[in-house]
């Protein structure tokens, strides 16, 4: 316990500097675009989570006589698809699938990529060469091509989509984590910690991870939008989630033939992908600015 009485919070002392995270939170609270996008994202996530309870209809129950009903039809606010299934219900359920397929690979990449990147950066030498040169190989393929190639070889299905997209994103995170680790490793306080007898584990935990997780997390957040677009894109090609499940990319694919009958309803699933991916981009931009990270 400290003998000197400390003020309860830094703000009680006029002019006292704010802590890093308080500064970040304050900057975010001033950034209107990020707040709006964040709220939108929260709404999308909540409605996807709550789909079983708030969807007005069964997403897979169709009525042949009610095919491609226009937006604004009574009891089908957003119309119906080519099999007469309620669009609103399918969009809500589809959001679940698209978010799972888009977010999981980035989470996997964040965990696996950080571990590999820190090992490569901290160990250096042969280990570094081994890990980083292996990752370089994946950079020989543009992201879309790599995802489609692996998915195409593995065949359709949600699990295969997750595998192929993780393969796309892991090398990217490794690169960022490795360069951040090398940078932090060279700083004087790490040398000081080593000199004062800290174990490798303590250095990794307290000095390296604590300092690189922020930048790596922000980088990962910038990849979510691409991951969602790719996940839906794989379903759009017939390589992702399989029918009759509702997924935005798959819905876009099956509704494509109907644009000559109804021009608005087939555009809706793509609009949902677009809005979600834009919200993720705006939020990650805001985070990056607020945390003062340059990528």
């Amino acid at each position: 316990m400290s003998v000197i009485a400390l003020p309860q919070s830094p703000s009680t002392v006029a002019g006292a500097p704010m802590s890093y995270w308080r500064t970040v939170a304050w900057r975010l609270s001033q950034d209107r675009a990020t707040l709006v996008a964040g709220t939108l994202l929260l709404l999308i996530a909540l409605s996807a989570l709550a789909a079983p309870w708030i969807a007005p209809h069964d997403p897979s129950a169709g009525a042949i006589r009610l095919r491609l009903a226009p937006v604004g039809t009574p009891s089908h606010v957003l119309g119906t698809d080519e099999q007469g299934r309620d669009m609103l219900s399918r969009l809500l359920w589809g959001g679940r699938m698209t978010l799972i397929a888009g977010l999981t690979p980035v989470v996997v990449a964040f965990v696996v990529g950080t571990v590999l990147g820190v090992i490569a950066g901290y160990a250096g030498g042969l280990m570094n060469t081994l890990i980083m040169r292996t990752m370089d190989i994946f950079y020989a393929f543009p992201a879309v091509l790599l995802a489609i190639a692996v998915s195409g070889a593995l065949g359709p299905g949600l699990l295969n989509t997750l595998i192929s997209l993780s393969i796309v994103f892991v090398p990217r995170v490794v690169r960022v984590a490795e360069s951040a680790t090398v940078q932090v490793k060279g700083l004087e306080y790490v040398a000081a910690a080593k000199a004062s007898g800290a174990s490798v584990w303590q250095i990794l935990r307290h000095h390296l991870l604590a300092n690189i997780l922020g930048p790596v997390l922000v980088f990962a957040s910038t990849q979510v939008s691409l991951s969602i677009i790719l996940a839906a894109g794989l379903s759009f090609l017939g390589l992702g989630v399989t029918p009759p499940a509702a997924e935005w990319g798959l819905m876009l694919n099956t509704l494509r033939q109907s644009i000559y009958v109804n021009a608005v309803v087939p555009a809706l699933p793509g609009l949902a992908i677009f809005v979600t991916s834009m919200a993720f981009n705006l939020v990650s931009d805001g985070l990056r600015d607020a945390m003062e990270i340059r990528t």
Partner: protein
Amino acid sequence: MWRYVGRRLVLAVPTLLGASIIVFAMVHLAPGDPIAAILPVDASKEQIEDIKKVYGFDKPLPVQYLKWLGRVVQGDLGKSIATRRAVILDVRDSLANSLVLALSSSVLAFGAGIALGLLAAFRQGRALDKIASAMAVIGVSVPHYWAGIILIIIFSVQLGWLPAMGASSDGGLVGYLRHMTLPTIALALIPLGVIARVTRSAALDILNQEFVLALRAKGLAQRRVFAHVVKNAAPQIITVLGLQFGFQLGGSVLVEAVFSWPGTGYLLNLAIFQRDMPVLQGVILVLATFFVLLNLLVDVLQTYIDPRIARH
């Protein structure tokens, strides 16, 4: 300079070899027997063994890989299982169509993206900057396959101005260009956003440096200051241009699927659904090689413009 180029060339070899291993491994990633697609349903044991021998599947994997690599290096990508044509011929024909699309969309995206980014930087904080920034965010967020469908809905279905599918050659050059227009726009959206973004931030970095202030203090006209900024921002922009061009070539699969454009993406799509592994491998290997060589070219070009890079 030349030593740097040489070193980069040597470094590209292991990358290409690694890529070839991944492409080779894809056949074995695939569920089921790689020759299942070409076997008659009632094939006898001997027939299966014969076909395996013909395709070399009876040898151990490393031997198979080396033999395959040896053929690939000589330009022999095998035969398509579906059409029995040499894969290299199919890839060559479709690659021409994809290159045309990648070039046209790159020209559109580079021109519009650089212009938008520079305008935004010079009008920082004003309405034009905000519009340009919004366009940049939209560009990187829009699923381009959906944008393609929207373009078809507006310009083909509603207005009837442009064709929605294929690349028919019976209309001659005009017909080809008309078929090209919509896929070009759809494919240009993402790089347009990325390039506008990078150009804006690169130009802003330069604008905030002291020498620009000095130029202005010297009484230089805005136009001349502009030229200095562009020259200094060029290396950074060129890197992104090169990368984006590569993405255009490999990333057009989805757009080609939407417009049934007979390029590499369309061929790839077809191969996936016919489980035509030699075609799948051929397309991906050729595109990856293009991509690696392009990255190499960008590096070299960058060093040529800014020799300081080679020293790092």
